[in-house]
């Protein structure tokens, strides 16, 4: 993790999203898909905490070497402020933070499932997977047309792409979970990746567990610091040896986790007490580790 006083190159809007490009060569150099950036809020102390955004693009080479792009939807104090920051102003940025998505070594058909701004990091992943010769298919969902994240970029990055909107204003009406099974079959998906709201990630987890498909998800949990100090961002994750679970920090132990090991009921607050690791039903194809 590096800290940079990063100049804003551009701050543009795409539908419901804003996309900020900053100059931060030291961070761009090592940034991987799934990792995120932490942006300090203005001095003034009314709103204190840093804001966190997945890395949507990182250019290590070329004309604009050393730049990074992140995207966000304007909906609160921090994103309001960010939306008004113009080119040539500076941001206090930390990054890259967290564990990136892992690439499958043997398997090749990768289905990427995104909802809302989750597409930001998955497009970055799509690009890297393709560079490794993998087949990439995309399933992108959103509330409405405005919230479908850069659809043209999605098409460019994937073999096939399907769009789902809750109101039917683009692609099919419904959620990505409605289309998941069909899309997985049609693309002969061997590996799933997902980013988006908790409820959607859980749906992907249930699906990948039931099918025995290895999967990786990027989570977003409320963060005090975003760099590992405060333990406010934990996700309950089962230990590999089955001896219980650990509340792992989404910021530095994640944000990418194996969904088969996340204790969803507990994380989502549906069961409060010190619960047990879920025991998979007899003969269930639950994937317990990521293949290499």
């Amino acid at each position, binding site marked *: 993790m590096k800290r940079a006083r990063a100049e804003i190159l551009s701050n543009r809007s795409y539908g419901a999203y804003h996309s900020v490009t900053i100059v931060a060569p030291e961070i761009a150099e090592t940034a991987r898909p799934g990792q995120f950036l932490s942006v300090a809020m203005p001095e003034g102390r009314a709103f204190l*905490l840093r804001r966190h955004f997945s890395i949507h693009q990182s250019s290590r080479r070329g004309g604009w070497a050393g730049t990074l792009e992140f995207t966000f939807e304007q909906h609160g104090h921090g994103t309001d402020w960010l939306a008004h920051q113009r080119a040539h102003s500076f941001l206090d940025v930390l990054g890259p933070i967290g564990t990136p998505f892992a690439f499958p070594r043997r398997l090749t058909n990768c289905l990427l499932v995104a909802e809302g701004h989750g597409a930001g990091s998955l497009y970055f992943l799509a690009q890297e997977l393709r560079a490794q010769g993998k087949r990439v298919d995309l399933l992108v969902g959103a509330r409405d047309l405005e919230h479908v994240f850069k659809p043209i970029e999605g098409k460019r990055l994937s073999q096939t792409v399907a769009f789902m909107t809750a109101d039917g204003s683009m692609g099919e009406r419904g959620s990505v979970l409605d289309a998941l099974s069909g899309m997985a079959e049609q693309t002969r998906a061997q590996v799933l990746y997902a980013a988006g709201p908790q409820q959607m990630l859980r749906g992907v987890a249930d699906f990948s567990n039931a099918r025995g498909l290895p999967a990786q998800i990027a989570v977003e*949990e409320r963060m005090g610091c975003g760099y590992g*100090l405060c333990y406010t961002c934990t*996700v309950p994750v089962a230990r590999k040896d089955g001896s219980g679970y650990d509340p792992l920090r989404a910021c530095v132990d994640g944000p990418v986790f194996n969904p088969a090991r996340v204790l969803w009921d507990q994380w989502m607050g549906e069961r409060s007490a010190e619960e047990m690791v879920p025991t998979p039903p007899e003969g269930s194809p639950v994937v317990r580790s990521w293949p290499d």
Partner: protein
Amino acid sequence: MAVKDVDLAVDLNGLVLPGAVLVASGCFGSGRELGDLFEARGLGGVVSRTVTASPRKGAPSPRAAETPSGLLSMVGLQNPGADAFVADDLLHMASLGLPVIVSVAGGSVEEYVRVTAMLDGAPGVVAVEVYLAGPDEELDGQAFTARPERCAEVTGAVARRAGVPVFAKLPAMPVGLVDVAGACARAGVHGVTLIDGVPGMAVDADELASSLGAVEGFLSGPAVRPLALRAVHEVASALPELPIMGVGGVWTGRDAAELLLAGAWAVQVGTAMLTDPAAAGRVASGLADYLRGKGLVSPSDIRGRMRAPAVRPDAPSRFESGGSA
């Protein structure tokens, strides 16, 4: 004649720290996370997160919510247990070359003593800080701080067992703070840390839900600094010989100076570490600049030096007389 430069070292009645600014409990991780973003130079030490005898998983999600000028959080003492802490995190903290103060907690007097004993022979530990905000499991589950005599029992037992000075960490109680601090001092603590986070709540009206999984949390950050100042001032005025670590909303060197002026001997930086990895070092150098600007050389030069109007002996007390507050 050479002008003497500022030296931030402080002497807390025999506990000598290389700086007057420390990192507060729960806001430093394991010492590994910040890497070279953490600047140890000029600091007086770090306080560990609170450890208990056995591992604790902590509170449900979400554990943090931003509030105006504050952070509401409930981590719930997640920690790996004292043995694992000593074997791992503590080694890293000690390797920074800074004094380490270990924060301890338990549900019973016996457990507090057991955790303290588990620190025997641990490297770098110069003091123990006793966390008292947790539930008293031997009585009715109320916080220990609800009863001065229980605070005295716990801190006294820890002080007898620990081979190092012991601090009692106390909340910003509106009434009776001096009684609790005095009881702890008589029981054998070396000093007090003021203040712990302030109990609070946040509600998300969009979601019709509490913002924290545990509903109640602790408020910290600039929003609580006035509470810390008052608590420090009250205890320093009543017990001038008792070393006080001032904590609460310190963001800059001037904020630290305010706590020292109110009577603190040293200060801790908590929440600011979560928004600026270099916060503690920045506060220390800001404090040095402040002292230099005043032509002073040591934090002790300003300790308790705030000018206040003399207290009239017949001043109405809001709490005791139910007077016209």
